[in-house]
């Protein structure tokens, strides 16, 4: 395993998260998979759609539901070169949420742009 900016990134893996925060272990298990794939030099995109976008809301009070702050998990992603944490524009449009509600590192992409990313990926895992 290796970490760092000079790794060869031939294999692209997209992981799609569609279910809301704290409802199950989807987020943790998706991020775990992303981290391990990145450690094996894969280029990983974490793509949040539907209710899954709520996982990325900042200032969540996880302790009030006896859970841990899952957004903290994302802070370590850049060390594994996971730069692409993506929210689907169309999913965002269905809510009253705005970009400012989310952690800083997210990128907003349209469904068409995400489809293109998926077409170019070697592996697609929908959690």
């Amino acid at each position, binding site marked *: 395993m290796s970490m760092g900016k000079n790794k060869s990134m031939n*294999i692209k893996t997209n992981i799609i998260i569609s279910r809301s925060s704290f409802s199950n272990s989807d987020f943790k298990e998706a991020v775990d998979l992303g981290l391990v*794939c990145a450690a*094996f030099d*894969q280029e990983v995109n974490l793509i949040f759609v539907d209710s899954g976008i709520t996982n990325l809301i900042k200032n969540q009070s996880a302790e009030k539901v006896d859970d841990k702050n899952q957004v903290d998990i994302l802070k370590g992603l850049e060390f594994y070169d996971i730069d692409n944490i993506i929210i689907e524009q169309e999913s965002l449009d269905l809510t009253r949420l705005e970009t400012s509600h989310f952690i800083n590192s997210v990128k907003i992409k349209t469904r068409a742009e995400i489809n293109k990313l998926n077409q170019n990926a070697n592996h697609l895992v929908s959690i």
Partner: protein
Amino acid sequence: MSQELVILVSASPVKAQVHLTTIRFIEQLIKQQVAIHSVFFYQDAVQVANRFSCPPSDEPQLIEKWQSISLDSQLELQTCVAASYRRGIIDNHQAKELSVQSDNLHPSFKITGLGQLAAAMSDPKVKLIHFK
């Protein structure tokens, strides 16, 4: 470069039809001599490896079907260690760690790390097929 398939299963065994579809798919792959790299169980799918599960006799006996696939094809059925322990599926090693009387992992399955799946996915000749 000959292609190999990694089969990823993430559906709970309660969704029996997903497992049955996966098993039928693997049977066809074997019949057509398509190379299968590995079968990896993640998320709720790991619960199928619980040797104490007792589905009603008139419902699909998934563990027997997976065992049959494993024996006939020599395929290793891998379950994710973190997903397994999180759901109470433990092997002999973890049973000793926890000082409990018995493990509950069916002998057809092997608990491994996510790294096994990621390493397989890093092989350019491997294609992932996900059943959920």
